[in-house]
């Protein structure tokens, strides 16, 4: 029985040495995995969502291949509901390889506004959970995660509708001018249209206007909505109904009483 015992002994020792050396060197390889983040790009998709793209360069200078490399970004609203989520998977990063991928995430502003419309008008910070997972040597799963904040710029920051100005055009018609202004703090341009309807005290539609809106990112917008109303239809009191139809979201109707 001595020989089988010796064989088991040798196999056990060799297996232990291989296991320890592999595990230690695999964990040590983590420090030879480097990440470089490029400049993020913002755009819009064909269905009116914001597309956030971040190029990531991963260099594997460790001893083993890295399998199932996954980057996941989750953006949360104030009540911890998921606003946006993006995930990028690389099946294998070979030893000595450098891989560049685009980490994409679509952001539905209309979906965000379902949680709180104040995101249209107030700048804030959005909570983001970032996690990176991989398998070292295809054997040891490793995951790193962290919580971060990303700034949210309101697209209609400081939104204002000025006092209506009434100008008599002729014996039958008058012009009603309503100034509108806001600051686009978002990182995307805003294009769309604003529609305004004027109703008198008897709920009769007395005037309508629409204007195109184009506000570049981080810029101020100021414009006038002009309605042409039959003078006899305009009453002392009534209300305006404003709607904004922007490519990324719709806002309104907002009811503004006058008189």
């Amino acid at each position: 029985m001595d020989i089988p015992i010796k064989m088991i002994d040798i196999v056990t020792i060799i297996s232990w040495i291989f296991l320890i050396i592999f595990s230690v060197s695999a964990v040590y390889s983590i420090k030879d995995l480097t990440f470089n983040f490029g400049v993020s790009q913002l755009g819009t998709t064909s269905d009116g969502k914001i597309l956030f793209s971040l190029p990531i360069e991963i260099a594997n200078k460790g001893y083993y291949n890295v399998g199932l490399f996954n980057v996941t970004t989750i953006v949360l609203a104030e009540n911890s509901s998921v606003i946006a989520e993006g995930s990028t998977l690389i099946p294998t990063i070979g030893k000595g390889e450098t891989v560049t991928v685009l980490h994409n995430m679509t952001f539905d502003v209309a979906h965000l506004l379902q949680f709180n419309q104040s995101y249209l008008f107030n700048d804030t910070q959005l909570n983001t959970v970032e996690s990176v997972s991989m398998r070292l040597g295809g054997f040891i799963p490793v995951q790193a995660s962290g919580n971060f904040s990303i700034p949210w710029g309101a697209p209609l920051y400081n939104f204002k509708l000025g006092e209506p100005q009434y100008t008599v055009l002729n014996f039958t018609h008058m012009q009603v001018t309503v100034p509108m202004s806001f600051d686009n703090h978002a990182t995307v341009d805003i294009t769309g249209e604003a529609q305004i309807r004027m109703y008198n005290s008897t709920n009769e539609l007395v005037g309508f206007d629409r204007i195109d809106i184009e506000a570049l990112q981080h810029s101020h917008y100021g414009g006038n909505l002009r309605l042409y109303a039959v003078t006899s239809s305009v009453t002392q009191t009534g209300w305006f109904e404003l709607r904004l139809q922007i490519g990324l979201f719709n806002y309104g109707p907002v009811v503004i009483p006058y008189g």
Partner: protein
Amino acid sequence: MVYYVCWLFLAPIASMIPALQQSIQTFVVVYITLIIVGELSAGTVYQHFFGVANSLFVVAYLIFSLNSATVSMTYQGVVLMVDLRLFLVIAMLLGLLGLGKSMLQAINFASKKAEQTPI
């Protein structure tokens, strides 16, 4: 020797896990002590008892030190988690193999002793 070589690789990680160095040193001290005591009792059945104890110590140490086999640490606001379940299973199998070897050695020793004992 293996300990010193592996420690060269683990030293940077030990700074992130404060208890790692003490944990590994405790294991190495107890393991070597059991080996030395086993060698000191060579030629007796107690040598194999210490061999069995050594194998059981390795298995028990792995189970208790790795807890749920997932090691988690927080470094500069980032939570790093390493799943060592497969490693733990393989290590436990090797530990059980060592335990089986020690028991076979004890049985072999006892049978040789019985053969030598005149009736």
